[in-house]
């Protein structure tokens, strides 16, 4: 063996000429590896694969013409994008490759932007400059962004688009949840435009809580808010029995009575056992309040709190006063002031108090509170930051109670502490933290939310959009959100609108809810008689929708006051107020309009004029439109509906003036029968 090795050594390195030759050859080979490695690079392999794939296709010539060999890149110096992804993802722009499902040749789905407008990494993250699969998708270096999982992709839309978009339901939901569940009460989120996200969860004041609920309910609620109401936005703080006992003791001891927030009624409730349920229905309480039915489904709106077990929560005297006028207890409540008479209040409160759950409070037995317990409760209230959300007399709202989340989407992985078995990516960390905050440390004070997986993904998406890039984008690229206005209607009508909480559902001049129609131009659109009548007895305009507008039992003078204000103030300047409506005598024009309605424009596809034959359930029923809408509005609506209501699904048919006039004449003639009955009355 040794002999064999020596002879080989002699053969290769025996003298200087041999040694030089052998070393040279070895060196030459090792140098040749470099160009060879270059030649067998991954992107070349994928481009060959692409060419092979398109060769046998019918559109081979077109695809071949579009194909450019070599490294491709999208270079956008002003936003720092150098994306070479298209070197391998060659068929990205080829719509005809829709049938190809294998990567990297699948074409990009249709999006509102051109593919080379912003490049790839702006949305997908990853390392754009890389030309190898591993480096581009899962960069090994910690300070690079790995590719963003597809379920969070909408977060990238949110970097530029600060408002909600029709194409980003997940992002919109996540942003809404951040406000709706009060995340931003504790965590400050400063947006790139300098504003902060505002909470919309409207947590109640606890300063007068003793008037409203018994201590036992507070205890049960603190232990598990979802046990009382599945839809509760209050999270579970996982308090011990003693802690819940002490906090409830403190809240009761700290509560001060409020004049007028309780009432004893002399009136007896209606003797009809079904009267309460029907009053609940007639008042459209379910438009805002939900109830969990026997099947376990939550039915109703989510503007107000769930009422499934309200009888176990509130004291009867408080409920009476609340139903008489909720603003006495909470001036800022979104609940309208119904003008109920005492008998109705008694009937409705009896119905609501019957909604109890004997299991909820059966195991709660609290001894009278001791001063030590109350003091301990006060300390806990400060420790858990209760005053971040709730107003509590004597406790100041803490500043910066929880970490600021304004740049959470760019948090470096090196700054995170992961749980064992968790994949080391930022989205997984955020999702994990929302899912089970205390799993990261039992000492954390962040409570347990009862989010579903899709809600967690939505919140994660919204948080990932809060990153360095969104703050450093050139202003020309950002699309700001519509500014939330603090519009306040003036005068007596303004007070009335506040009392009726119109803004809980309707939007006017940029303020208000989205449950009901935007009323910003309502004065231009409707006729006064119809509006007054609608206040007295509202109905739905669309056959496909259930009615949500409650009857507030307003007086004639209140209805007239409101109608006058709306007709005067909510006028759209583009409506021609001098528009001369087609007269009743213009039968020819009406007939022409009817033909256009059923012929050229096929309006019956969405609307109903003849209740017997038309089947349009999408748009409002038009049988009474002539007594509801003004002719000037109808004419303008025909010409350009989007100008009056941006985002309406009514198509813009680019009508000529003659057609619009004829259709207006036809619609104005649709006065229905109901108004005549009203006149009789």
């Amino acid at each position: 063996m040794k002999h064999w090795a020596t002879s080989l050594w002699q053969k290769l390195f025996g003298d200087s000429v041999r040694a030089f030759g052998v070393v040279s050859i070895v060196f030459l080979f090792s140098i040749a590896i470099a160009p060879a490695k270059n030649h067998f690079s991954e992107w070349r392999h994928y481009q060959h694969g692409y060419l092979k794939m398109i060769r046998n296709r019918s559109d081979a010539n077109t695809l071949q013409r579009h194909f450019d060999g070599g490294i491709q890149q999208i270079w956008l110096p002003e936003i720092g994008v150098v994306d070479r992804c298209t070197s391998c993802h060659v068929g990205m722009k080829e719509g005809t490759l829709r049938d190809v499902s294998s990567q990297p040749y699948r074409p990009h789905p249709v999006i509102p932007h051109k593919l080379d407008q912003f490049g790839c990494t702006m949305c997908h993250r990853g390392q754009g400059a890389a030309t190898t699969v591993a480096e581009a998708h899962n960069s090994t270096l910690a300070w690079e962004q790995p590719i963003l999982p597809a379920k969070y992709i909408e977060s990238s839309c949110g970097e530029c688009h600060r408002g909600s978009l029709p194409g980003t339901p997940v992002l919109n939901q996540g942003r809404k949840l951040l406000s709706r569940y009060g995340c931003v009460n504790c965590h400050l989120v400063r947006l790139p435009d300098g504003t902060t996200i505002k909470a919309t969860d409207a947590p109640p004041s606890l300063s007068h809580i003793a008037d409203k609920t018994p201590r036992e309910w507070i205890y049960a609620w603190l232990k598990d808010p979802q046990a009382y109401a599945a839809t509760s936005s209050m999270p579970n703080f996982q308090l011990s029995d003693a802690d819940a006992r002490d906090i409830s003791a403190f809240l009761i001891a700290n509560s001060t009575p409020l004049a007028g927030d309780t009432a004893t009624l002399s009136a007896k409730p209606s003797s009809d056992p079904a009267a309460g349920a029907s009053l609940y229905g007639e008042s459209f309480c379910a438009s805002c309040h939900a109830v969990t039915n026997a099947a376990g489904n939550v039915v109703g709106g989510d503007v107000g709190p769930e009422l499934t077990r309200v009888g176990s929560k509130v004291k009867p005297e408080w409920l009476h006063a609340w139903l008489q006028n909720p603003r006495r207890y909470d001036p800022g409540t979104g609940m309208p002031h119904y003008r109920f008479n005492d008998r109705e209040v008694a009937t409705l409160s009896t119905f609501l108090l019957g909604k109890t759950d004997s299991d909820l409070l059966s195991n709660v037995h609290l001894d009278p509170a001791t001063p030590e317990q109350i003091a301990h409760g006060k300390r806990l209230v400060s420790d858990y930051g209760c005053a971040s959300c709730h107003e509590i007399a004597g406790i100041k709202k803490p500043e910066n109670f929880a970490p600021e989340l304004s740049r959470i989407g760019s948090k470096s992985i090196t700054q995170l502490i992961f749980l064992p078995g968790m994949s080391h990516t930022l989205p997984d960390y955020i999702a994990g933290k929302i899912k089970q905050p205390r799993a990261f440390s039992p000492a954390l004070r962040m409570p347990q939310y009862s989010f579903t997986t899709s809600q967690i993904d939505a919140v994660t998406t919204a948080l990932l959009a809060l990153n360095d890039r969104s703050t450093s984008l050139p202003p020309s690229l950002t699309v700001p959100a519509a500014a939330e206005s603090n519009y306040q209607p003036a005068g007596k009508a303004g007070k009335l609108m506040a009392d009726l909480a119109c803004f809980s559902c309707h939007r006017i001049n940029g303020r208000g809810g989205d449950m009901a129609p935007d009323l910003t131009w309502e004065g231009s659109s409707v006729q006064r008689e119809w509006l007054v009548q609608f206040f007295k007895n509202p109905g739905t305009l669309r056959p496909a929708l259930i009615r949500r507008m409650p009857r507030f039992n307003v007086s004639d003078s209140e209805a007239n006051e409101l109608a006058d204000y709306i007709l005067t103030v909510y006028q759209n300047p583009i409506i021609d107020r001098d528009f001369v409506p087609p007269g009743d005598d213009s039968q020819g024009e009406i007939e022409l309009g009817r033909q256009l309605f059923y012929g050229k424009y096929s309006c019956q596809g969405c609307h109903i004029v003849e209740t017997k034959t038309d089947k349009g359930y999408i748009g409002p029923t038009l049988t009474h439109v002539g007594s509801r809408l003004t002719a000037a509005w109808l004419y303008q609506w025909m010409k350009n509906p989007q100008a009056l209501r941006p985002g309406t699904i009514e198509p813009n048919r680019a009508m000529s003036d003659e057609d619009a006039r004829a259709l207006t004449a036809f619609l104005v003639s649709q006065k229905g029968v109901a108004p005549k009955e009203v006149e009789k009355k």
Partner: protein
Amino acid sequence: MAKTADQYFDDLRETRVWRSIFRSGTGASTLKRALAIQQNVFLHLFSTKVRTRMLSFSATWYLGTLTLGTFFILVATGIPLMLYYHPSVPQAYYDTKDLQFVVSSGLFLRNLHRWSAHAMVFLVFAHMFKVFYRGAYRTPREFNWVIGVILLLITLLLSYTGYLLPWDQLAYWAITVGSNIASAVPLIGNKIHFLLLGGNSVNANALLRFYVLHCMILPLTAIFFVAIHFWRIRKDGGLYAQSSEPAVLRSRPVASEKEAQ
């Protein structure tokens, strides 16, 4: 009779073109060979004559030559690297990335430069140890030892300045730490620190400074001292071999023995 390769080479050296370029003529005489070395601008730094024994591997382990070889590789790869590199904060890191991603054989170029640099530092130390343990630093070669120490310093500085240029986290923190060590110098430490970085922390000025040092000042200084280093080998009596030392020096006892006497 067929000519040998040597004869073809001799013929070549007899041509008019060759003679016009190289002043020394042909001939195997010692004088001619000595002239060929002495009259060449590059080779005249070296001794005109070297003992065959000194060219054997065991004499020097070729450590000095290998160091020079790595230095040549570093110059040869460093120049193309300069073509792909901008010493600016927004660009530097992405330029080194692009060497990997889009420059043909760019990663090979960069790695060759990097590994040769590591090898050079290692070889310089090895060379120094070999010289030290063989006693080749002694009279009359003391000054060449000093030149060698200067070259060691330049090598280390080249390595240190090159470390910042990729402008990654490793570079940033290594230079931050290194420059803080410099500020530990008594009295003028902070001044040195400021001078080195062009500021109080590692930033764009430091990058530019290190680039100029790495690509111009230090290599030119190194070449200058390498030339002196080689020239001194000749002047100090050629490559050191113990047997070649004068008998006086060879028999001279080392200091400790002298004291013991």
